[in-house]
């Protein structure tokens, strides 16, 4: 959904959701990061959690006067300086298709492209980590070529393994642990994304860059 102005909506009494206007861009994401930093400093805010060109604000206590925090969000959105993209660069070796890519065929059907074309398009860009979410250590990546965009599945799959490389709508990401997923899994990687014994426990941070390296293509 593309809107002209930012949209603020409720997530019950637990949180607010701020949705940035326009298409999903890295430039907007840089402003979202800056907005998250500012909002996270407010005493009534428990956590400011970036998503894909959006921001969730969880409350310490839901305020009676909602408009104060809503006004602050809109105000900061217009005034905040976007944070620069600053991070490390990682190469993720991926085996595309085969057992680790059970939904490659669905992406082929939807896009009308061959496996090799899909692999080439998926592994070409340098992706930016926009945000973490979904499950511990999972990264939402920006920069996927829209030619391989494939809608989320009608019925989510109950168990997708750790390291599953998937496409959901116009986004791509890698599972950091086994669990259910509504995305289309096209490959797999062995990298460990989250270790609670590490400090910080997550491998990636927003602003880091990722490249998918083609280890193997199983047709």
């Amino acid at each position, binding site marked *: 959904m593309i809107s002209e102005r930012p949209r603020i909506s409720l997530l019950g009494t637990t949180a607010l959701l701020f949705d940035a206007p326009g298409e999903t861009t890295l430039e907007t994401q840089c402003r979202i990061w800056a907005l998250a930093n500012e909002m996270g400093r407010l005493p009534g805010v428990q956590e400011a*959690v970036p998503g894909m060109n959006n921001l*969730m604000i969880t409350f310490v206590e839901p305020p009676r006067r909602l408009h104060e925090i809503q006004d602050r969000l809109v105000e900061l959105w217009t005034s905040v300086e976007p944070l620069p993209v600053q991070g490390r660069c990682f190469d993720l070796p991926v085996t595309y298709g085969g057992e680790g890519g059970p939904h490659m065929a669905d992406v082929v059907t939807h896009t009308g492209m061959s496996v090799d074309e899909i692999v080439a398009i998926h592994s070409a860009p340098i992706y930016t980590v926009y945000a973490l*979410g979904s499950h*511990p250590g999972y990264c939402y990546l920006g920069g996927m070529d829209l030619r391989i965009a494939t809608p989320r599945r009608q019925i989510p799959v109950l168990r997708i393994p750790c390291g599953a490389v998937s496409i959901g709508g116009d986004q791509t990401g890698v599972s950091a642990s086994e669990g259910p997923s509504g995305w289309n899994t096209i490959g797999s990687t062995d990298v460990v994304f989250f270790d609670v014994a590490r400090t910080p426990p997550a491998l990636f941070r927003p602003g880091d860059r990722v490249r998918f390296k083609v280890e193997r293509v199983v047709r």
Partner: protein
Amino acid sequence: MIEVLSAGALATVQDLGRTGSLNLGVGWSGAMDPLALAAGNILLRNDENAAGIEIPVFPFRVRFARSTVFAVTGADCAPRLDDRPILPWWAQCAEAGQVLSLAVPKKANWQASRAYLCIAGGIDVPLVLGSRSTQLRGAFGGHQGRPLHEGDVVPIPGPGRQARSGFGLIPPGLVLPFEADGVPAVRVLPAAEYECFTPASHDALWSTPWKITPQSNRYGYRLAGSELKPVRPLELRSHGIVPGVIQVPHGGQPIIQMRDAQPSGGYPKIGTVVEADLWRLGQAPIGSHVRFVRCSWDQALDALAETRRWVANARRLVELHCSHGGSDD
């Protein structure tokens, strides 16, 4: 320590949740009925956030290695100490070697499905990212990041606590009823995509009962009922979500995200169950029905204040009773 003699699936150590790590993709987890956990802790003069064991499947049996004061709240599961029936929602003393048995909850004047075993001092597992709740997806926290099974030994603090025994609390489920046309209900605030659904979908959401299917658990409750249809197909960007969010995937059957839900998602959201009523959902049995009642922001906050008042009152009266030389078994 307490030794698990038998456990059904998904008995986990939980406190009130792990906040502050959403930025790592770590969801809150925590008790599905936070009111019952808090009440059990209040009975034992623990911090409300002390960890207990959440038991959704029965029977469940543990042996106390030494004399322990404990309480079983949540669903009335006919608790027995050795062969003797004991009271639910009651501060109870167990002697070393005694066995606590919990059975399948029977239909009572308040429907509930999960029980909470609280211990004086709280379950003594390490804090991970600030909480003792079990993070099932990430396999950390609680007891080794997984559900309990037979043979597990769960650590509890040493003796010398201020807990007393021989008194109880009335379950809030009996005194804070909320129903619509005789069906247990929860209050809901419309979410961002509410307006994108058809008027018939709105009617169905508010006026029809929703059945909690067997494919429901701590991650989410899959509901069965009328089909909810957006006016046109929606494809959203991934965004943060919280427990209570009612998502509507392509099939048109809603899923309420619960305590172990992913902290972000991309399905359309028609509404969110308010925080004040999440404990009611947490106790709703598989196969039961629930109604959604639309409320205003102020009504939602009023409901939250009501649950907070119940907790504060329970704490005040328990402390008064215990400090005036309250009864001991």
